[in-house]
């Protein structure tokens, strides 16, 4: 009976695309969380909301306008932050509200909320087409390849930007590349949990895996495993319990975090007790 659901084409597509998204979000999330950019995903996805509304307003495929608007917004923010010394969290807030503001404005002009819009807000992984699945897989492959190729400079740059510069890295260029990859990751992942919950996939598996007290490589692997587990198990669970997949996935990730914190508190995992690390 459990196996029966894997026979449905929509379920297969959802699970495959979902797993790919889990991988890219957790990989990208490692760098975002460590650079204290945890809410950057949120800002990007709100910007994407603006982008989607531009698409719906002009009749262009909304996903494309979402990519363009959020990447431009993110690059603009990086530039803004560098040249005006506006702090990181404030810059994220500017990006977030301006994206969402444009969205609300254009949607009211287009004639209100539609089903399409709802699926972007809350995710619609089980409604995606074959083309969408292929697109998600292709983009995920690109994101994974870029991150694997850039893993050493990215790690050094995340650990200590100044030392990375002294080590001969073009830090400014790397920062722009990083922001573009982050943008692509977030927009691609919106289909799974929606604009409003995207940060969960970026942040939760990573802060959970960092509690294990391992090195970088192991932390990344643990985070990826947690993300894949939450997404796959979340989709299956949501089907049987007749709940929204996005909410189920997110709450499953929260449960894993709480469970890990408890285990750490009790001294089951990690070398140092939690009171010392937090």
């Amino acid at each position, binding site marked *: 009976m459990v196996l029966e659901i894997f026979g449905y084409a929509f379920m297969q597509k959802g699970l495959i695309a979902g797993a790919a998204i889990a991988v890219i979000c957790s990989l990208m999330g490692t760098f975002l969380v*460590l650079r204290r950019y945890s809410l950057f995903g949120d800002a990007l996805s709100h910007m994407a909301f603006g982008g989607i509304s531009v698409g719906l307003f002009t009749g262009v495929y909304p996903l494309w306008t979402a990519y363009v608007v959020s990447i431009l917004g993110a690059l603009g923010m990086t530039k803004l932050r560098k040249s005006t010394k506006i702090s990181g969290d404030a810059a994220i807030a500017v990006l977030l509200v301006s994206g969402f503001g444009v969205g609300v404005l254009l949607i009211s002009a287009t004639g209100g909320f539609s089903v399409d819009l709802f699926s972007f807000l809350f995710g619609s992984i089980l409604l995606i087409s074959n083309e969408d699945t292929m697109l998600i897989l292709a983009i995920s492959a690109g994101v994974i390849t870029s991150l694997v190729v850039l893993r*050493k400079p990215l*790690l*050094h740059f995340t*650990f*200590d930007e*100044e*030392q*990375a*510069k*002294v*080590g*001969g890295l073009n830090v400014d260029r790397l920062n722009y590349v990083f922001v573009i990859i982050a943008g692509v990751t977030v927009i691609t992942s919106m289909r799974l949990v929606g604009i409003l919950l995207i940060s969960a996939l970026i942040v939760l598996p990573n802060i959970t*895996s*960092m509690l294990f*007290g*391992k*090195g*970088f*490589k*192991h*932390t990344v692997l643990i985070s990826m495993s947690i993300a894949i587990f939450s997404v796959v198990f979340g989709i299956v669970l949501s089907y049987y319990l007749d709940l929204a997949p996005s909410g189920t996935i997110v709450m499953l990730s929260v449960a894993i975090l709480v469970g890990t914190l408890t285990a750490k508190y009790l001294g089951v995992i990690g*070398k*140092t007790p939690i009171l010392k*690390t937090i």
Partner: protein
Amino acid sequence: MKALEVADVSISYNGSLAIDKVSFDVNEGDLLGIVGPNGAGKTTLFRAILGLQGYTGVIRLFGYEAKKYYPLLPLIGYVSQKVNFEPNFPATVSEVVAMGLLSEKKLDKISTLLQKNGYSWNRVYSKLDKNSEKVLEALKTVNLDSLKDRRIGQLSGGELQRVFIAKALVKDPILMILDEPVTGVDVDTQTKFYNVIKKINEENKITIVWSSHDLEAIAKLANRVACMNRQLFFHGQKEEFFSNKDLLKTYTESAMQMHMHHH
């Protein structure tokens, strides 16, 4: 051969001069101790040498003008006073040291540039085959190989500084710049650290520029001394500096004043 030449370098900071026409040379193999009160501009000068800070005047590295030959900058090992990193950063000691590795492409470029100007390059770690071997050997040099799998946040301040030395060391720098590397650690830890400095200067043949408030340690380890406070007051052999009572007195007094001022 001169590893580093600083000629007429001035740096202004918010309208005031932080460094005023400083000139000195560092020969290959030197261990130069730079002394001067807090706020004397030592860190600013180091940042200029590393290409992190604009300046007027000329800085030459291995015979090349540093501004034009930035591919040579990675050949400087730099350990700053304080490294701000997230204490929970999920990286092991080995992983942090491995961040210091340079790509083969960069090493080749550097090697060609050095040969052109007739500099010899003593490659200890970068000639090894595997990255893991390079990292392990660098950790052995600073006596931290037993902690290689430890998470970085679990180390003491003194151990951390030695990890950062290993990270700077693993690419076989010709010149190491150490900016007050052992401020605020206990005497035992300092001694261990000074032994490492001596070892990499003598065995790895790395030229070292080292700023410190510890005159005793400088008297013991350095062969040359520079004394600065915005301007350069003295640059020469260690013996000359320590036998010049007037200079020593002025230095100690100004350092004391600055110290009192800070507290």
